[in-house]
C-alpha cells in the first residue's frame, strides 16, 4: 500500500469540510452547564434537608416510644394514679349517696380491684363520711 499518497488524500478529505463550532455555541453550552449544576446543587440541598427531617422524625418517634414503654414512670404515673383514685372515690360517693354507704364502698372496692389496687382506709372513711353526711 502506498502510504504517502494516502496521507495526502487524508488532508484533501479534511479540507473538504470546515466545520468549526459556531462561536455563540460556547456560551449556550456553558449557560446550560451552569444552570444544570446550580439545579443539581439545590436538589442536593433539598435532599439533605429531607433526610435530616426524616432522621429527626424517626428520632422523636423513637424517643416517645421509649418513654411510653417504661413501666410506671414515676412523675407521670403518680399524677395519673392520683386523678384516677380521686375520680373513683367521687364516683363511689355519688353511688353511696344514691344507695347507701355499703354499696358505695363495695362499688369503689370493685373498681379499684379492676385496676389492681385497693382502697385505703382514708378513702373508705371519706365514702362513709359522705354517705353519712348526706343522710344526716
Amino acid at each position: 500500500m502506498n502510504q504517502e499518497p494516502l496521507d495526502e488524500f487524508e488532508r484533501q478529505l479534511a479540507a473538504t469540510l470546515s466545520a468549526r463550532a459556531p462561536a455563540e455555541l460556547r456560551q449556550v453550552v456553558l449557560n446550560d452547564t451552569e444552570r444544570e449544576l446550580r439545579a443539581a446543587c439545590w436538589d442536593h440541598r433539598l435532599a439533605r434537608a429531607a433526610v435530616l427531617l426524616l432522621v429527626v422524625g424517626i428520632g422523636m418517634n423513637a424517643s416517645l416510644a421509649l418513654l411510653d414503654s417504661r413501666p410506671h414512670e414515676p412523675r407521670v404515673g403518680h399524677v395519673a394514679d392520683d386523678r384516677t383514685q380521686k375520680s373513683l372515690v367521687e364516683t363511689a360517693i355519688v353511688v353511696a349517696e344514691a344507695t347507701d354507704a355499703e354499696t358505695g364502698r363495695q362499688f369503689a372496692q370493685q373498681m379499684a380491684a379492676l385496676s389492681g389496687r385497693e382502697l385505703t382506709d382514708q378513702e373508705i372513711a371519706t365514702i362513709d363520711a359522705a354517705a353519712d353526711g348526706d343522710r344526716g
Partner: protein
Amino acid sequence: MSESPTHDLAARLARGDQAAFAELYDACADRLHGYLVARLGSRDAASDVLQNAFLRAVKSRRRFRGVENPVAYMFQVARNEAARALKKRPAPNHVWPAEQRIVQTDRNAEYAEDTEMVAAALGRLDADDRELVELKIYAGLTFREIAAIVDRPAATVATRYRRALESLREWLAKQFR
C-alpha cells in the same frame, strides 16, 4: 505521585466544576462539531447534538470518575446523541451545506473538484467504515481513541480505516478519470 492532567480534569468534571466543563468544551468542541457535521450532514443539527451531548455529560458527570480520557468520552456521548438524532429523521445523504464547503485549491482539485463528490464517496462506504473515516479525519482522533469509542481493537480500526480510504480514493479517481 501526581495525577495526570486528564485524570485531574476528569476528577474536576465528576465534582461538577464549571471551569472544568469550559476546559473540556475548548479542548474538543471544534473537533466534535466537525465530526457531527460529517455524521449528520447539517451544521444546525450538529450544533444541537453538541449542546445535548454536553448537557447529558453534565447530568451524568459522576461517570467522569472512571474516565481516562474525557475528550474521547465526549466523543462517545456525542456519537450516542447523533445516533438518537439520526433515528428521529432520515439518514443524511452527505450533501453538505454550502457554508461548510471550502473553496477548492489547485492542490486538491485533482481528487475533489466538488465536495459533493467526496460526500457521495463517503456515502458509498459501509456505515461502520464511514464512521471510522469521520472520526479520524473530521474529529482528528487517534486510532487508539477511535478503538475505545467503537469498541474494537486499534489494529482492526487502523486496517479498516486504511481499506476504506483506499476504496474512497479509487472511487474518486474513477470519477475524475
